């Protein structure tokens, strides 16, 4: 596709030494690494909370924690996994890979890039600090519905401010990504020649700018309701709590696609490499992503069918939601067509990609079931919903992130990772993730509600299976940490190409990618 254009004549500086390299970094690779390390750390923080949840649910009755703390755990687990883990993980991929894939020397706004990242640890610590305040952490669920959320203790303003900070960080990252892609592409890299990962992030960044201010507005209104005497959501003062649900889900549903679109992008990079065929229907994939992004704005009230709405509203949101299956199916069929008659091999990234394909589709189908308004009256707030969104987020988004990490790790570190351990990691993850979440469909359909620390004895067996799966899945991820550390410290040297003729400009630079790449733009043939 291009000639290598990496120059070492940037003789003025390499990376700074010591802590200054990281704290003051404006280098997209260093900032990408920090995002990824932060995300991995938060995976274990959020994972520890899921251990508390699953330990409590191991058998019926109250075992370890009181119900209020249980609710704090479910809430913080969700907030941390969404805002502190999976979004920063994909921001890390964006930082590392977008400049390399479009032939840019760095992100367009490097100082703001530093700021976007460094807000995150402070916001995360502030959110976690509420655990130690009077009244504890938010216990309203990640949806932060009033009036429940307004009943929390001293931690309320801290939790709200941390959500604001996380939003500001995301918006700045989104602006940076859009500006970089629109302005710093190498000559010849037209929009329709951009790799799918870049495309999915471009659209994701627009989604972020469109919906993060809405969440921020809702949260600000919560704060003014609590402290400044307004009644946006307080019925006693003429407000309407349901308004917050509309605001939250106008943000919340596109947020789901903010999480999954970059995952689609990573899968679209991995499958062609290991099928040894170009991505089938690249342009159709772009339009499908754009279609999904558009539809994500007009489906939000499917989260609120049971709140009560006119029949016309139910029909509209039901139909618009089911429409999403069409562009999503375009993507799934195109990935399948890419593999069709390909010379496939099954290295670890490909295993995670295929695992994604099967299990994300399970989550997609249960999503279709939930979209059917009359059926949703039964499923709503049951464990079936928990099973659905965990299938989309864990073997969906998280598997894509892990697959992407294995795929690009040789480019990042200059070493091949341990393939055998990678494969063991995949199979352990795949078995345990299904053991965790598949039984939750059954207990949900049988009537077990979500967000409760105790349950009827009829659900005991499936819950025990689910807990064993969760512990196994969590512990399996320690293997990922070991593989990463081993790969960073040494191993077989990676070539520039790493894989067998993979597509993309990132494979034209040496491995590990030098601190500065594409000081002069590459030439695209």
């Amino acid at each position: 596709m291009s000639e290598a254009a990496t120059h070492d004549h940037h003789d003025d500086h390499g990376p700074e030494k010591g802590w200054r390299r990281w704290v003051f970094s404006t280098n997209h690779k260093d900032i990408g690494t920090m995002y990824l390390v932060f995300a991995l750390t938060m995976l274990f923080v959020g994972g520890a909370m899921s251990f508390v949840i699953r330990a409590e649910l191991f058998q019926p009755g109250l075992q370890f924690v009181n119900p209020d703390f249980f609710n704090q755990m479910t809430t913080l687990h969700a907030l941390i996994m969404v805002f502190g883990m999976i979004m920063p993980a994909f921001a890390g991929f964006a930082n590392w890979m977008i400049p390399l894939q479009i032939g840019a020397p760095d992100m367009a706004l490097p100082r703001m890039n530093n700021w976007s990242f460094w807000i995150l640890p402070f916001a995360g610590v502030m959110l976690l600090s509420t655990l130690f305040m009077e009244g504890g952490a938010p216990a309203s669920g990640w949806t932060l519905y009033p009036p429940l959320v307004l009943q929390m203790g001293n931690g309320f303003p801290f939790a709200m401010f941390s959500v604001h900070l996380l939003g500001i960080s995301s918006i700045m990252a989104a602006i940076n990504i859009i500006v970089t892609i629109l302005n710093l592409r190498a000559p010849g890299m037209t929009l329709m020649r951009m790799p799918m990962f870049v495309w999915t992030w471009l659209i994701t960044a627009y989604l972020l700018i469109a919906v993060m201010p809405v969440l921020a507005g809702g949260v600000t209104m919560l704060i003014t309701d609590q402290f400044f005497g307004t009644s946006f959501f307080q019925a006693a003062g003429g407000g309407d709590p349901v308004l917050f649900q509309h605001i939250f889900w106008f943000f919340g549903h596109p947020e789901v696609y903010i999480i999954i679109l970059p995952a689609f992008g990573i899968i679209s990079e991995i499958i062609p490499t290991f099928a040894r065929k170009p991505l089938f229907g690249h342009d159709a994939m772009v339009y499908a992503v754009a279609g999904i992004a558009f539809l994500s704005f007009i489906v939000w009230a499917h989260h609120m069918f049971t709140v009560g709405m006119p029949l016309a509203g139910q029909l509209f949101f039901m139909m618009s939601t089911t429409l999403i299956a069409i562009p999503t199916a375009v993507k799934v069929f195109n990935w399948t067509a890419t593999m069709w008659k390909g010379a496939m091999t099954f290295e670890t990234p490909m295993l995670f990609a295929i695992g994604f394909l099967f299990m994300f589709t399970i989550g997609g189908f249960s999503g279709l079931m939930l979209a059917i308004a009359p059926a949703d009256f039964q499923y709503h707030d049951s464990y079936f919903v928990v099973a659905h969104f965990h299938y989309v987020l864990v073997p969906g988004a998280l598997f894509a992130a892990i697959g992407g990490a294995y795929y690009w790790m040789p480019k990042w570190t200059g070493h091949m990772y341990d393939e055998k351990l990678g494969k063991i990691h995949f199979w352990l993850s795949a078995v345990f993730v299904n053991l965790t979440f598949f039984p939750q469909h059954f207990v949900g359909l049988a009537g077990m509600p979500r967000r409760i620390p105790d349950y009827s004895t009829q659900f005991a067996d499936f819950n025990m299976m689910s807990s064993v799966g969760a512990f196994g899945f969590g512990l399996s991820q320690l293997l990922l940490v070991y593989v990463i550390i081993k790969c960073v410290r040494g191993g077989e040297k990676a070539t520039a190409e790493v894989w067998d003729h993979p597509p993309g400009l990132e494979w034209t630079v040496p491995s590990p990618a030098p601190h500065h790449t594409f000081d002069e733009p590459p030439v695209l043939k």
Partner: protein
Amino acid sequence: MTNMTAEKNEAQRRTIKRTAIILGLLAVGWYFGFMALRLL
């Protein structure tokens, strides 16, 4: 597009700045505008 000459770099810098400011204003405007909608 990445450019090499100094004049082009200056033009590119301005475009980057302009795009970023427009997007930033959109985000901040939408935040306040959205809340203002409720106050109408």
